[in-house]
């Protein structure tokens, strides 16, 4: 009944060149973003192999040494190698940034899907709470939360995750409102499938792509926010190698020892910049609405 040739041909065509990669290759800025990020990730992963130094070990004898072959980016006020601390700091920043956004996105998408699917009073309550959270500037709210929970990397992560959640709730909710009307969701209702399985099986998987776009854009922000909190002394505590706190301590010595805050700053800039380029590229591809 069905011409098998057509179907197999169609299938081959679909797997040959995946349109997303096709388009990504043609976007220069995104490619640059990917290259930079790839480099930083490699450096972070290979950190223990690349440097002979320990990021936390104090060696007062070698403090404030300028960039040299031995210490490419110089040393800090207690003689630790700055390059080593930056590389280990990259592990922390990238890891924390990804983790925070992942957690925020997962929680946000679920709350948003529940809110949008059920509607009514549940929706009202959830959305008013989210509006309250969104009313504050994210950074101020994150600072307030960390300050009240006590300054530590853990609490900073939690605070950032909390302030990021409303964005995903809104996004997932608006997707859900569209998906709820789709016939495959209506079909599932007719089959007698309960709401939570419908949300998990149909709503969330289909709402996930705009969330991924938002998440790629937000990882850079989260890294910046972690660094900001670190800079203010609310995030990672010494001796943890963290870019923000390195810049914070280093900038007091900027005039005498320029290398100390400069190199962590450059890495922070490169990382969040690369992530933003990637995020923009991914959005252009996956979201036709913002394209033209």
């Amino acid at each position, binding site marked *: *009944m069905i011409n098998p040739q057509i179907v197999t041909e169609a299938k081959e065509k679909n797997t040959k060149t995946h349109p997303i990669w096709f388009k990504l290759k043609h976007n220069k800025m995104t490619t640059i973003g990917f290259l930079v990020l790839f480099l930083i990730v490699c450096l972070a992963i290979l950190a223990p192999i690349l440097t002979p130094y320990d990021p936390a070990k104090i060696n007062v004898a070698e403090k404030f040494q300028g960039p040299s072959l031995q210490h490419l980016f110089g040393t800090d006020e207690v003689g630790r190698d700055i390059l080593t601390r930056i590389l280990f700091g990259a592990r922390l920043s990238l890891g924390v940034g990804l983790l925070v956004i992942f957690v925020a996105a997962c929680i946000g998408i679920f709350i948003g899907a529940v809110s949008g699917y059920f509607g009514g009073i549940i929706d009202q309550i959830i959305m008013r709470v989210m509006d309250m959270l969104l009313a504050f500037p994210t950074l101020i709210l994150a600072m307030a939360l960390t300050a009240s929970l006590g300054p530590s990397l853990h609490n900073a992560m939690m605070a950032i995750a909390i302030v990021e959640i409303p964005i995903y709730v809104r996004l997932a909710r608006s997707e859900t409102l569209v998906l709820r009307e789709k016939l495959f969701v209506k*079909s599932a209702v*007719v089959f007698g*499938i309960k709401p939570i399985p419908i949300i998990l099986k149909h709503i969330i998987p289909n709402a996930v792509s705009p969330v991924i776009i938002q998440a790629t854009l937000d990882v850079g922000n989260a890294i910046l926010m972690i660094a900001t909190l670190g800079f203010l002394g609310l995030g990672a505590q010494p001796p943890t190698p963290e870019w923000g706190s390195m810049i914070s301590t280093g900038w007091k010595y900027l005039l005498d020892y320029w290398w100390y805050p400069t190199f962590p700053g450059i890495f922070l800039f490169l990382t969040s910049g690369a992530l933003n380029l990637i995020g923009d590229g991914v959005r252009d591809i996956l979201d036709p609405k913002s394209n033209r």
Partner: protein
Amino acid sequence: MTPLVQINHINKIYGNRKDVIEAVKDISLPVYEGETLGLVGESGSGKSTLGKLLIGLEAPTSGEITYRDKVLWKKKRFMRPRPGEIQTVFQDPQSSLDPRLRVKQIIFEPLSALPLKERKEKGSIERLHALVKRVGLKVEHLDRYPHEFSGGQRQRIAIARALITGPSFIVLDEPTSALDVSVQAQVLNLLKELKQENQLTFLFISHNMSVIRYMCDRIAVMYKGGLVEIDETKNVLNHPKHDYTKMLLSSMLKVN
């Protein structure tokens, strides 16, 4: 004959006090076991709303629907007879299949509402393969995604999904309206054969009089939410009583 479904004085009103749309107005009709009842009308006639009341997607504002003498709606609660007993095939096969699931998962989905024992029994691989072949698909199609199929094939998938639970009653809401005529013919033939083989009862909703004429034993004509005529197909076609039915028949375009 005993009615499988009995609709008694059903009303469906949308909107609040100021802006009221009466989608379905005081409709009473039986659907007999084993028949195909055609529900014909134009857009806004309320035919799709009536279908939704039967499958549990919309609650009636007043009136009563019984299925095998059991009430379907108690206030706003749908009293599902036995899961999978009433099934449906929608118009648009683009949107009725989840693009993220494989065909096998799609066809098996209705089973997940069934009790474990029945689920195992009906979800056997042999049964799945037989069903897939019966609707004109191939076993190797089971691992593919909906976007790899044409409209007609997607509608076959939707039909297989409706049959997996072994239903008695299927509401077909414009099942071929989105298809090309040559493919429509394939699907209509298939539906007719399946109805014979499985002793099904169909409620066939369509705006297309020639499809309804070909498929249905009885025809119910709806106009602006009300039921204007219901009779056996040949009577409706040859001796239409209501003016609207006459108008509908006269505006049918005949090829020859």
